[in-house]
């Protein structure tokens, strides 16, 4: 017991000496840590970056695809899911001959959406934000959908 107190005391004494000798280094380290935290905080408060080359490429691809997807949203064949993707809601609304093309369109769109969420998270230095970004987008796609488009709410398809 005495030995352990003694050891602790010695350790603290060494710490004290270390602190005395390296006080100025400590001070500088603390300054750097605080300064970097302030800059990170400022960065976090600013807008998210959505203009990296990878994200821009995905956006352009989705933009051109939207012209082909839009009629299907309007007819109700394709809808916006709760998790930020699109899905074929009623393939019966599309002629049989076009169904495989529609499935491919939806598949490509979802691949691009996954790349978009991942790309924005990576562009802002936080790959772990992908899920949160996806949830944010899921909400905003549905909020901004045109009236009549199928959207998923609580697992059910509704027309907006």
């Amino acid at each position, binding site marked *: 017991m005495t030995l352990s107190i003694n050891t602790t005391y010695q350790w603290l004494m060494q710490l004290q000496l270390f602190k005395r000798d390296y006080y100025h280094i400590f001070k500088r380290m603390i300054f750097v840590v605080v300064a970097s935290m302030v800059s990170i905080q400022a960065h976090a408060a600013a*807008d998210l970056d959505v203009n990296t080359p990878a994200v821009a490429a995905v*956006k352009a691809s989705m933009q051109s695809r939207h012209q082909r997807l839009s009629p299907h949203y309007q007819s109700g064949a394709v809808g916006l899911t709760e998790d930020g993707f699109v899905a074929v809601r009623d393939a019966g609304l599309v002629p049989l001959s076009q169904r495989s093309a529609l499935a491919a369109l939806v598949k490509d769109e979802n691949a691009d959406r996954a790349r978009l969420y991942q790309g924005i998270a990576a562009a802002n230095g936080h790959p772990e934000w992908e899920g949160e970004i996806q949830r944010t987008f899921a909400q*905003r796609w549905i909020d901004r959908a045109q*009236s009549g488009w*199928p959207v998923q709410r609580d697992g059910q398809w509704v*027309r907006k």
Partner: protein
Amino acid sequence: MNFAAKPSLQWMNAFALAVATTGLTACVTINIYFPAAAAEKAADKVIDEIWQTPAGQSPASVPGPAPQESDVPAATPAVSPSVNQESAP
């Protein structure tokens, strides 16, 4: 004992160090919070670009023909009557 008086000072230092460490950790924790408002703004910007909707105009405010269609009974079954069935989940 010789060191009986000193430990109180040492413990105070150790305590101060612990408080400082906790404080710094707390600051770092705050910094990794997800910026929800910025993300929403970014999402709106991206959606505007992809859907080509003019900024500031919500596409939902444009009245679509779908709500009117659902009021019309099966008198004109020419267009696509199956669309109306899904409106009531």
